[in-house]
Each structure stands twice: as structure tokens, then as C-alpha cells.
């Protein structure tokens, strides 16, 4: 081997070995392998050699280049490893420090409960129909079989806007408006959620503005058995499988036969407490077969179709679901109340 080659080799390998950082290593690389580095310079001296020595000199320089490149690569990997190790050992955060601040928002508990309810009914083929809040006396009462002078008007303290217009006292006018909007198409199957108004003084269980969800199904073959099926499935899914449910005969002017839907008290599990008036049962909904007059008022022929309807108080359901004991909290817009309903 040419002495010059050997000298370059020893020097280069030694300097590579001595390099302390990737920067130094790069300087070594440039010194030996750069365009004007020692190894290219060696190769340039090849012309000064006798022709017969040239091939072997060239081969040796190339093998030197390979050797240096390998050493550089090995050293580079080693140094990089050292750098990473150094970073990993040196860089450190106090993980107990608070992270960046995010304050999530929340849906109102009434909206949450309503979504659950609509989801359940959606699964049973009900769509959503939204009806107006200001109504005519005609729609709110007369079309629902509650003529002037009907005793049911006593039960519903009504806010009037004029002699003939009012704030709806229930979502039931949505039955008639919804049917009329379907223009005779079948099957009719929708729920009507919304605000309703009663002239009741405010207390822990009364608020002049509250919410109801009405439901209606009309078709050529809808019967009391379907009403039972739908209402029972709803109550089971909303209140839980372990809930006992009963349909108890009752009276509404716009349904016949009518029933109240009672569920076993969620607080005392049916044993009797102050919330359920010691009966063990809670009234959660009213329901019934749509009265033929109402079917007629919706533009359908009661001799051809039958229907059932149900309605419940959203506020009451949400109070039971979340264990809220004062309806006024729903309308307080108090952050300390609302922010409790964050999350899934």
C-alpha cells in the first residue's frame, strides 16, 4: 500500500473516532471526502504515477474511501444515539403542572332528555314535527273536542292573546296541524316537542312555561295494542328495563279510550314516598286512541283509519331522570346548574 494512502487512512480514522459531535464529524467528512478533500486529492495524483501502478492505486484509494465512509456512518449513528440519549435524559417537564385550559360547553338537560326521547321514538319510526307556540282557540281546544264551556277548559288555565288566540296549553294542536300537513298521506307517525304555557303560579313543580312531547300515529290498522306496545317500549327504554309500567284508564277529550301511563316510582322503587304520593307510581304520560272527531279535523276519515296519541311533560321526565327537585332550575340559566350536564 502506498504510504500516502496509509497516512491518510490512519489520520482519517483517528479523527473520525475523535469527533465529539455531529458537527465535528461533518468537518472530518468534508476534510477527507469533500470536493477538495484529501481523498479526492489523492485520486488526482494518479496521473503522476506510472501507468502500470495506476489501477492498483485507484483501487486502493476507492477502498480507502469506502472504509472512511463506513467509519463516518458508524460514528454518525453513534453520535446521533448519544444526542437522543442526552435529550431524553435532559429534557423533562413537570407532568403535574396543569395542561392547557379547555372549558367544554353543555346541552341543556331538557335538550339532552329530549334527544334521548326523540332517539327512542325515531327507532320506532316516528319523525319530528314542530308546531307553533301561539295558537288559535280553535286549534288548541275546539279541534281537539274541547268546545267552549267544556269542563276540560277549567283544567287548563290558559294565557290568552286575544279573545280567539292564545299560548298553546299543550302540544296536542300539533296533532291536527301535523295531520293536515300530511294531506291524507299514510302512515302518519311523528312526535311534536315544544314549549307549552299554563297559567299556574310558579313553584317547585310548576312553571308557566314548560315543555311537552306529543306523539301521533295514524294508519288503517293502528289499534290500542299498538299504543300499548309503543308506550310500554318507550317507558322501558327511557326509565330502564327494571321499571314496572301500567296503563290506567283516564280521560282526555281528544282521545278515547284514554289512559295515563304510570311507571313505578324511580325514587322509592314502588314502595311509596313523598314524590309518588305514597302510591308507588308516577304519572308520566297521557295517551289514548285518537277521537274520531280529531281524526276528522286532521283531514282523515275515522271510518277508514284509526290512530293513537300520547303526550308527556318533558320537564317532569328530565326531573326524574336527573334527580332534579325543582322545575325552576331549568329556567334559571345558572352556570352552576347548566355546567353539570357537560359530557356524553
Amino acid at each position, binding site marked *: 500500500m502506498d504510504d500516502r494512502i496509509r497516512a491518510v487512512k490512519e489520520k482519517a480514522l483517528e479523527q473520525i473516532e475523535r469527533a465529539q459531535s455531529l458537527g465535528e464529524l461533518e468537518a472530518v467528512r468534508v476534510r477527507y471526502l469533500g470536493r477538495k478533500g484529501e481523498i479526492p486529492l489523492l485520486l488526482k495524483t494518479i496521473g503522476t504515477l506510472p501507468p502500470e501502478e495506476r489501477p492498483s492505486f485507484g483501487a486502493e484509494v476507492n477502498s480507502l474511501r469506502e472504509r472512511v465512509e463506513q467509519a463516518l456512518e458508524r460514528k454518525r449513528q453513534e453520535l446521533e444515539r448519544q444526542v437522543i440519549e442526552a435529550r431524553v435524559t435532559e429534557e423533562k417537564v413537570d407532568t403535574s403542572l*396543569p395542561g*392547557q*385550559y379547555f*372549558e*367544554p*360547553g*353543555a346541552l*341543556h338537560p*331538557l*335538550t339532552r332528555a329530549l334527544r334521548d326521547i*326523540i332517539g327512542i321514538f*325515531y327507532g*320506532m*319510526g316516528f*319523525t*319530528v*314535527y314542530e308546531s*307553533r*307556540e*301561539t*295558537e*288559535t282557540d280553535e286549534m288548541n281546544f275546539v279541534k281537539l273536542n274541547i268546545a267552549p*264551556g267544556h*269542563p276540560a277548559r277549567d283544567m287548563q288555565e290558559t*294565557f290568552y*292573546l286575544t279573545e280567539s288566540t292564545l*299560548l298553546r296549553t299543550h302540544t296536542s294542536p300539533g296533532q291536527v296541524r301535523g295531520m293536515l300537513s300530511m294531506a291524507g298521506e*299514510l*302512515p302518519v*307517525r311523528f312526535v311534536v316537542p315544544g*314549549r307549552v304555557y299554563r*297559567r299556574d303560579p310558579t313553584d317547585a313543580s310548576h312553571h*308557566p312555561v314548560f315543555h311537552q312531547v306529543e306523539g301521533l*300515529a295514524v*294508519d288503517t290498522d293502528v289499534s*290500542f*295494542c*299498538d299504543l*300499548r*306496545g309503543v308506550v310500554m317500549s318507550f317507558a322501558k327504554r327511557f326509565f330502564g328495563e327494571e321499571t314496572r309500567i*301500567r296503563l*290506567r*284508564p*283516564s*280521560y282526555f277529550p281528544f282521545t*278515547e*279510550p*284514554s*289512559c295515563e301511563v304510570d311507571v313505578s316510582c324511580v325514587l322509592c322503587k314502588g314502595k311509596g314516598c313523598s314524590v309518588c304520593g305514597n302510591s308507588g307510581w308516577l304519572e308520566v304520560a297521557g295517551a289514548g286512541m285518537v*277521537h274520531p272527531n280529531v281524526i276528522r279535523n286532521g283531514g282523515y276519515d275515522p271510518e277508514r283509519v*284509526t290512530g293513537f296519541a300520547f303526550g308527556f311533560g318533558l320537564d317532569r321526565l328530565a326531573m326524574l331522570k336527573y334527580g332534579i327537585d325543582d322545575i325552576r332550575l*331549568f*329556567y*334559571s*340559566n*345558572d*352556570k*352552576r346548574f*347548566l*355546567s353539570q350536564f357537560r359530557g356524553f
Partner: protein
Amino acid sequence: MKVPFKWLNEYVTLPWDAEETARRFTMAGLKVEDLYYDRLDISGVVTARILKVTPHPGRNDLKVGVLDAGGPKYCVVSGAPGFSEGNVTVLAVPGARLPGNVVIGTRDIAGTRSEGMVLSSNELLTGGSPRPREDIILLPSDTPLGKPAEDIFELDDWVIDLELTVNFSHCLSILGVAIEASALSGAPLRLPGILEKWQWASPRGSAEPEGMPKAKQKFAIELPDPDLCPRYVGKTVRGVTFRYSPVKVERRLWLSGMRPVNAVVDATNYVMLETGQPLHAFDEDRLRGRAIFARRSRPGEVIVTLDGEERSLPEGTLVIADEAGPVAIAGVMGGKETEVTEDTKNLLLESAYFSPLSVRLTSQKLKLRTEAALRFEKGVDPTAQAAVAERAAEMISALAGGEPYPGRAETNVLSPCPKVIRLRSKSVERTLGVAVSREECETILSGLRFGVEKSPDKTGSSEDSWCIVVPPRRVDISEEIDLVEEIARYYGYERFPERHLSKAIPGGPPGKDFVRVERLRDFLVSLGGLEAISNSLISPSDLAKLGWDEKDPRGNPVRLTNPLSSSESCLRTSLLPGLLKAVIANQRAKVPGALLWEIGNVFFRSSEELPLEVRELGIVSFGLQRPKTWLEDESLSSFFQMKGLVTAILELAGIEDVTFLPKASMPFHPGKSARIVAKGSTVGEVGELHPACESALEIIPPVSMAWLSLDALLGLSQEKKFTPISRFMPVERDLAVVVPEEVPAGEVLGAIKQTGKDLVSVTLFDIWRKPPVPEGFKSLAVRIVYQAFDRTLTEEEIAVDRQNIVRELERRFGAKQRV
């Protein structure tokens, strides 16, 4: 309606105890509001015979007697007329306890020891004193002695308190409930006294039996207002004596929530509770003239009612009058002048049918809610007046002596027309979903005392049907569906199988708008907003405080005609008053800040019959939005926070080309607010609260807010469409221009977007107002991202574009590029 269980069992022997009966009632639609055991709280009260009576040594109004209580003897002092040898009475022995925690001991009465006390009915039942002219209780002489009073009298009973729905007026009587109980249990119904003979509650109503004696009546009955009173029966009973009712009757009245008065009045009340037909007894001798009128009152007429109140009668009130004037407010309350007193000998019993609406209005107007009015206003059996009058006469005769005078004074303009309804078994099946057997339908309906007749098939159709005769007492039954309901109730709701709607879902998912509004809610939550729900009833002053006057549609709300209070007297015209109230409430609770929003209807006056309902989104933020932490500075509610939020919402809605024009209306700060315009129309406003409103509301700044018309947003928003993603790399270039201070930055950004080609985004990242930028000018630094869809942009292309932009900005705003 309180139903004493033993009384009920007098008419139908139920196979159930009270609790099971209550459960069955509930499940048949007679809702049980309460069920309780009512036991008279007494002890030490026994039957005893008065063996020997001697005069009291000191007082001649008292006697001293020796009583035999079935072994033990007691020496008792009493002044009662019935305190004489041989009589069997009720004795409270020393140590006995009477209701109201009255304890009877051995007392000294005018120098003589009295070992206990003989009792009147009132003492036994209430623990109070004997009433005027009330004697001690006298029992049949064969009554066993020493028996506790509880074993002799019906002093304990279960009471089923029914909360009847309006279709159950036929159950406002013990017999009415007994009919339901009989149908439920199959146990036969027993009608008391004369009612059986009169076929009371039969399908075609009550009817006078053959061969009843007749006689000329003292009074003629005149019905000049048959629309209000079409039927009036007067029944005379002669020769009554003043008495109190037996313990059993008084006790049952107490259990039913009524106060015993005297035997005559009690008998009328008892029969009312029994049959549901209210009755009134006049002292016949105090009625003037020879005619009784049921007529509308005349102007200026007054009456003193039984309760002693003088009442002036609203003109047109139905009254009962003799020839001198009103003697009763029909169906509501009798008059003082003709009431039954201790001296009454002869009675005229009234049993009538009054128009339910008329009684209801009268009772409402006079604020007199009596048991009678309650029954009349629901509608009583229009055929039962004579039958019940006879029953009451029978009862009075038994309780107060006297003889019913034969026949009745009566006038009836109601024509007997039985209500007959065709019931098709097809209707039963299609409504109920179950084929209830013919036999069961018939059993149910005849059990409820409907007349069930096979339908003669006049129409020639092959329909399986019945003709159902509806008893006149069933005022709630008027059409076929009513009968279907009766069958369903008695068939039992629990027996219907659960079925599930099977047909394809109609109409698809909830309406498109509904889904989009729900997504909007989720988005607002994701931005940290708390959903609020405010009262939609507000006060006009809430609007005035926000600077809206009557000329502004928002200051001229729809008003309620009968609000509960002025603070809830009109409908909201904006969501902002409610949200600002929420801010105030939260600030009072020392909440440092929040972002609240609400989606709901607001209401405007309209030329249509109904107000205009518009859905809006309202947002309000106050105070601290993000607290200062070790990582970052605090951030407060501000115009730009709110504008950023609104911009994001508009982007979410897919609305392009939105402009924020300076200066929104009240209650926004004129210098820190904007009107939001999209496609040429105002869709909302955004900004900070006007300082005047801050002080009017006593609200702590900073408060920022926005409202957006949801209907406009949903109307303008575009369906999501996929845009292909460019394969070529984006290029970023920064540009700084100096413009005069008064040039709105938004216009500069707009001009860049309009002029540049292949721009993906233009972001303002700095505003500089200090040297070297001269005074009165500002430097705007923007980052422009270029990206073409079909090629890599060359440096030359970008340089040309940049030049175009600079030239345009110079032309429009006198801008100079800053290098």
C-alpha cells in the same frame, strides 16, 4: 268523591277488601286519590241501661241515675230528656276517651258525683257538646249491655277517595260507584228503598210505578225558562218533628266530608250522596203564594243564602222563587228565609234538573262551590227527579217522622227520548286490536246497566252490531267510540297484548332543519357554550331597558290579556333580554364568566290572526372567557371573541360572502358592533353591550352578544359538496402594506381576495402602528397561501400576482408596500 266502604257494600257485596277494591277501581278508570282507614278515636264508651232515676238533690234540671253497663253499675248525673228509667243509652265510663282527646272522669256536678257521662250523638262523634235540643243517644231496649260503642255503631271504615275525571260524573254518588263495582265484580246491585220500584238507573231511566196514589198539590210548578230548568219536582212531607239523625247517618255524612245539620237536611244530603241527585228542603209554610217558579232573576233581586250572606243576584241567574221573590239560587244554595228550622212542620222537597252550564256559571260568579252545584254542573240523570224525591221523602219520614203527602207538584218539559247508539263489533276490534267476544261485550255493557239489544239489520248490511240503549244518567256517552271505551276499561287495559308498529318508517329521518339545528347545538357546545332556556314571557320593561321603544318591532311585543304578573306579561321579541337576565343572575352568584346561548322562538305582532314566530339563535358572553394560567394570559368577553364565534357559525352553515357592516342597533355599543349581512339581507347582529344598557341593567362589563336569525341561516345555507383536493403544493407569501388608519382592514383583505388568483387563504397576522410607519397610518401584514388546482405555480406567476395585488391596493386605498 269519598266512598265509605261499608256504605258501598250496602248496595253491592264486594268479594274484595277495600285495598283490592281501590286497585280495581284505579284500573277501571276511577282514580283513587287516597285510601285510608277512618276509625273514631274513642275508648271506654259502652251501652248501658238506666236502672233507676232520682231527682238531683241540688238542681231540679238535673237527674241522678244508676246505670247498668252489663254488670258494673255507675252513678251518673244528666239533664237530658231521654234520661229516664228503662232507656238504653251510651255511657262514657270514667277514664273513657272521646274524639278530640276529650277524657271523661268522675266529676262533681252540683254536689253529686257523676261516674262518667251519658252521650249525645255529637259528643260521641266529635267530642263536642250536645247541640240545641239534642238528646242522649237512645238505643232499642234489647240492645246488649256493656257492649263497646264500636261494636254497636259503624264507627270505623275504609274510605276510598276518588279523583273523578270529568267523564265520571255518574260516579258522584255511592250508588253510581256501586254500579261500577257491580260490573267489575259481577256481584249484584241492591237498590235501597223505593228506588228499585222506580227502576232508578235503568237503561231507559226512572219511571213511576203503576198505581201510585195521587192528590191535589198545594203548589203549581211554573217553568218560564225551560232552557235553564226543564224539570222541577216538589214533594211535600207533612208533620215532621225536629230531630238529629241517628249515629249511623251522621257518621256517614262525616266520612263523606259533610257536616250533619238536622234529620231533614241530613236526609236530603244523604240521598244526594246516595243517588247523585241534589235535593233541597223548604219549610212549606214559609213559602208564599201557591206557585213555585224556576226563573231568571230580575234586576236588583237579592237573597240571603243559608250561610247568612246577603247576595245580590246577577241579572239572569236561575233562581227558585215563590210568588214573593227568590227563595233559592237554583242548584247552588237555598235561602235563609225558607230554610228548615226547629219549628218546621211541613216540607216541600225540591228535586230538579238544572242546566249544567247555568249552574256552573252561577257558582263561578258567586264563588259558591257546593256539593249540589258540583253535581248539577256535571249533569244529573234527567229522569231521576221524581224517583229521588220519593226516596228522600221516604228517608225523611224515617229520620224525622212525618208522612209523605201523596203525589208531587211537578212540571217536566223534557221529552223522553232514549239515547240509542249502534255499536259494531268491527269498531271494537279495529280500535282495540283485539276481538273481544260478543258475550263479553254484552256482559260488560249490561253490567254497567246499558240496554243491550240485537241490532235489527235495517240497512241490509251484514255488519255484526248491537243497538245500545244508554241510561240517561250516563251523560258522558254520546257516540259509538264512548261505548268502545267502556268495553276497553272493563275488559282491562292489562289484558291487551303489546304490538309494535310494523310498516316502513314514513317520511324518513327527522326534518332536515331539525337535524341541522341539532348539529348547530353540538357545535356551540364544542365551542364551550352552555345552552340556556329562558322564560319566553317577559316584561315590557325588559325591552325598554334594552333601548327598544314602541316604534321598534322589538319594543312592541305581543301582550297577554290575562298575565299572572306584569313581569311575565308579554312574549319575548328577542332572546337577548333572557340571556342578559341570565348574565345578571350569574354575576349575582359570583360566576366570573360564561358563554351562554339559546335557540328559541321570538314573537312579533302581525297583521295575520296569529303572531309571527321567528326562530333565533342568541349568544351572550360575559367576563372571563379563559382564565390566566401559567401557560397563557386570560381572555375576556369581547367584540372579536363574539365575531369569531359568529364567523365560525356562518362558515358551519355554509354561508359565503358575509359582511360585517359597522354599527348595530340597540342594545349594541355603536362603536363596537356590526350588522351581519349575507346575500343582501341582515341575518343578525354582533357586538358589545351599549354602556347605557350596562347601567340600566346593573350588569358588569364586558358583555358581548350576538343574535342570528336561524330561519335565514337555514334558508341561505348550502348543502355540503365535496371539492377535490389539489395534488400541488401550496406556497406561502407574506405581504405588508401601509394604509391610512381610516381604511377598514376588512376591505383591504377583501380586495386582496378579489384581485389575487389561485388564493387559498388570506390571513391578517399583524397590525403595526408605530415607527417607521408614519402617524395616521397602519401597516397590515398578511399571509397569502397560493395553490393552483392544475399545476405547480411558478415564482414568476406569484410575483406577477403579488404586483397586481399591490397595484390594486395602491389604487383603491393609497396603500404602499412595506419592504
